[in-house]
């Protein structure tokens, strides 16, 4: 069973003579627990790929399957629910709400999903503590460093216990030390907490934390490189765990 599968995934922007093919029939399969980096020159389609996988944008043709379920057939409401519960998003510019504390920012997806505030805050605290921010719970974004803000954003992305984390240039706005820490954290999220991570980056040093790199060029996959077997090992562990639970 794959967690993400794309079939002939194609995205064309514009029409007629000015049409630009951002993605051209991408076939890609990602197994549970993998940490995959997507790389390529700017304009190669890597962010488009991430947006389509996350259901933030519609493909021109082809489809995305999450847990073997096609996103194409979903109604808007179902897609929104699926995004909120199954997918976590992390962006370059953190996208935190300035007037809310770390706990309030992190708890927001749960409250929007109907959870009681006290429960949502408890769960938010758990994830913030896992992110090493146990002593920053009541801080607002402007009281936190860039690296800490991104940790809050990651906690918020994971608080609803999604299986898939999508990260678009998550270290693009950080100095190299904080960037390394965030990349190591994403690795931990995949290895220790068995979330699947799909990350777009242009930074080789950040990509090297992943277990696999998919290289895009002009909207197609030109190379798909496995960096180590840890991902496959993790995948086996996850499969065995799921078999025990079933």
């Amino acid at each position, binding site marked *: 069973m794959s967690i993400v599968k794309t079939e002939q995934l194609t995205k064309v922007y514009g029409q007629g003579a000015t049409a630009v093919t951002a993605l051209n029939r991408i076939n890609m399969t990602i197994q549970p627990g993998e940490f995959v980096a997507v790389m390529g*020159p700017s304009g190669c389609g890597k962010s488009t790929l991430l947006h389509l996988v996350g259901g933030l944008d519609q493909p021109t043709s082809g489809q995305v399957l999450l847990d073997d379920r096609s996103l194409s057939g979903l109604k808007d409401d179902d897609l929104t629910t699926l995004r909120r519960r199954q997918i976590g998003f992390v962006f370059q510019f953190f996208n935190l709400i300035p007037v809310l504390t770390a706990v309030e920012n992190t708890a927001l997806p749960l409250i929007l999903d109907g959870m009681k505030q006290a429960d949502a805050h408890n769960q938010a605290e758990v994830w913030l503590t896992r992110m090493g921010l146990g002593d920053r719970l009541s801080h607002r974004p402007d009281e936190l460093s860039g690296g800490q803000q991104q940790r809050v954003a990651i906690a918020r992305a994971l608080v609803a216990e999604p299986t898939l984390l999508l990260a678009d240039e998550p270290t693009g706005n950080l100095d190299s030390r904080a960037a390394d820490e965030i990349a*190591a954290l994403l690795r931990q999220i995949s290895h220790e907490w068995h979330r699947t991570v799909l990350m777009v980056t242009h930074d*080789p*040093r950040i*990509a*090297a*934390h*992943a*277990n696999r*790199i998919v*290289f895009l060029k002009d909207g197609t996959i*030109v*190379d798909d*490189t496995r*960096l*180590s077997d840890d991902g496959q090992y993790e995948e086996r562990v996850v499969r065995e765990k799921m078999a025990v639970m079933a």
Partner: protein
Amino acid sequence: MSVRNAILGLLAHRPRHGYELHDAFEAMVGGEQNWDIKPAQVYSTLNRLEQSGLVVEDGVAQDGGPEKRIYMVTDAGLAELRQWFNEPSLSDRRRDEFFLKLMLSLVVADGDPRRLIYTQRAGLYRELHALTAQRSQVNPASQLAYILLLDQAIMHLEADLRWLEMVEARLDEISRQPIPEPAERPRGRPPMDGNR
């Protein structure tokens, strides 16, 4: 040359026997996964250093097992070490195997330069991944030396990857330029001056 000078340096730090030198070298470079030297190489280097008068025997250690000859550095050895410290260590990055492969893949009939670049890139990324993992295991409070060593390797790999990216971007351009032929050298005797 660097192993020989490193042994001189370790003996200038304090006298040791061969096996201690081997272990001290490996500890300094963060283990055999970084720089693997064999005990035999240490002993043969010690012999040559002794013959050149750069080290001398400084007694024998015996702790139950066989005797171990302890070496110390001589004044001549210290002078050689100082000279090594006074020279910059240059790397000759122009002698590059991948560059040769790339140039030849452009002209050999079934050469595939783009595939060559991707294979190289995958190899460099695997190395970068392994070094990154190794670096994350190192304790910055007690093992700063390894961090510096690993960072150097990581930064060189990053530079190699950036260069590969540039080569890929300019591959079509390079493909249109044949690799340079050697300048033609005149054969036989040089021509006589016409006036004579």
